[in-house]
């Protein structure tokens, strides 16, 4: 799969609520990061909106399916619009990819619009590309935000 096709595939899995399949796109040592601060360098001594290893990311997906996950039942409907894809660097093992995300979310009568700069570090495996690291810098990460129960 080409890199752009892979990113569209990832977005499609999220927008069709195939979260378990989405999780399988990540490597075992993957990190998924939504920084709190603009230009944030560190996730261990500065809080993050999300900073998950693979185990924590899996707990998010499991919570989506729990019948008493009040903020997630019903699940939000989303559209991930991925564009401006640029391969920043690549070698035999990994590729660093930048893209732009515009996301529309709808749940319980509320519609929200998100914008973010996204970076993927993709790793070539026997099963094709996998995500080793995904960083989502929301334009409003430092804003006064209502609870977030979606995946970017």
């Amino acid at each position, binding site marked *: 799969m080409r890199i752009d096709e892979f990113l569209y595939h990832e977005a499609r899995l999220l927008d069709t609520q195939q979260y378990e399949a989405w999780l399988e796109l990540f490597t075992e040592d993957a990190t998924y990061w939504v920084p709190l601060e603009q230009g944030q360098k560190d996730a261990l001594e500065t809080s993050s909106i999300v900073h998950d290893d693979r185990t924590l990311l899996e707990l998010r997906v499991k919570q989506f399916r*729990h019948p008493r996950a009040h903020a997630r039942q019903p699940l939000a409907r989303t559209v991930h619009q991925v564009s401006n894809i640029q391969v920043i660097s690549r070698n035999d093992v990994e590729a660093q990819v930048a893209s732009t995300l515009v996301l529309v979310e709808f749940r319980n009568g509320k519609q929200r619009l998100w914008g973010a700069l996204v970076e993927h570090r993709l790793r070539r495996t026997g099963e094709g590309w996998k995500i080793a690291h995904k960083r989502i810098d929301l334009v409003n990460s430092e804003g006064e935000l209502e609870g977030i129960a979606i995946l970017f």
Partner: protein
Amino acid sequence: MLVRPDRVHRSVYADPGIFELEMERVFGRAWLVLGHDSQVKGAGDYFTTRMGREPVIVARHDDGSVRVLVNRCMHRGSTVCAEGRGNVERFVCPYHGWSYDRGGALRAVPFSSGYSEKDFQKNLGLRAVPRVKSYRGFIFASLAPDGPDLENFLGPAKSSFDDFVDRAPGGELEVAGGVFKHAYQGNWKLMLENHLDGAHPAYVHASSVAVARGAPEPGAPGAEHYYDIAVRQMRQNGAPDAVWEAIGIWATPYGHGWLGDYHDDKRLIGGAGHPVFEEYRRRLAARAGEGEAERALRVTRWNTIVYPNCSFMSQFRQLRIIHPLAVDRSVVTTYSFRMKDAPAQMFRDTVAFANVVNGTASWVLTDDLEVYERIQRGFAAGSPEWAYLGRGHGRDADEPDGTRRGATGTSEIFIRAQFRAWLDYMSAEG
């Protein structure tokens, strides 16, 4: 009458007229927590915040005192300082360039020939909030010129701030690690009524407890994982009913209160046996003495509420300030604190804890916010008119230190105490 001993009328959450009166009589009178000394260390350091809905600047003056200034130019009303934090020599209004020094005095006015009186500047300094005081490094202010002094206002709740500071080797705390700001479509009181509620986690947080129980096991010292703190904390929220009933809950005059701690996971509460905690304990004892270290670490508290705008976790170094924006709209800022001279890993644990408990996308907080919004929608119903606050009612007991203790840890004594204070503020004239 809107407040009865064991119930409260729905309109206190839903009526915009009552909200307006609250801004004048509760937030316009009470001591409010604004922040911490470490946010304004040197002369000219400032940060902006709100007192109720009023925009204010908290600034360190040249004489070392902390001033709280209303962020509004005396000329045409623009805020003179952009939202955020930094260091300034002068606050310069963007509209006509009026400039004020760090203490709020008006220093320069362009086109000054247009004003006839040479000394008019004297009365046109930025409006200073009349009362500013700090307790153990925490900055408080009141918009009212008169009222109880801060120590009297805090009363027995001072002990929770003491707990916060006494745990730090050398007694120094600093705000660090980023600031979460989250919002919800609900009344400001709903947060304060939730933070000491030991009966809600099993229901509100059922899903995060369940997924954490199904997670891989956290590691022993030396074999730990990044996910450990999050998994451990979410599991703790599923403590058995008997634990919640036994932990103790206390209310004080002026509506403050705290809940005993429900944690038994030694990794989270820094129990014996963990090398990082042992090092921390050594440093604390070296500074404070063995006996004092022993005493300080025996205090076990979960949230403390300082009514009407603050909730903090002394043991977990988190502090939340609530900003009421409208009857059905609230914003919460959450700060983490670093204990200076404690091992670096302690602060990493604090950050991981903040992410899981107070993060805007956390497994835990998101369910609280969802419930606040559902309560707000429920209270829009004109009938039934009353909400019931009767858990433990009639069994509250006076303690020798001036607190009142609930019959069990899940008593709603703290909400009743908040409404007693609310009624005092709201019914006092003038």
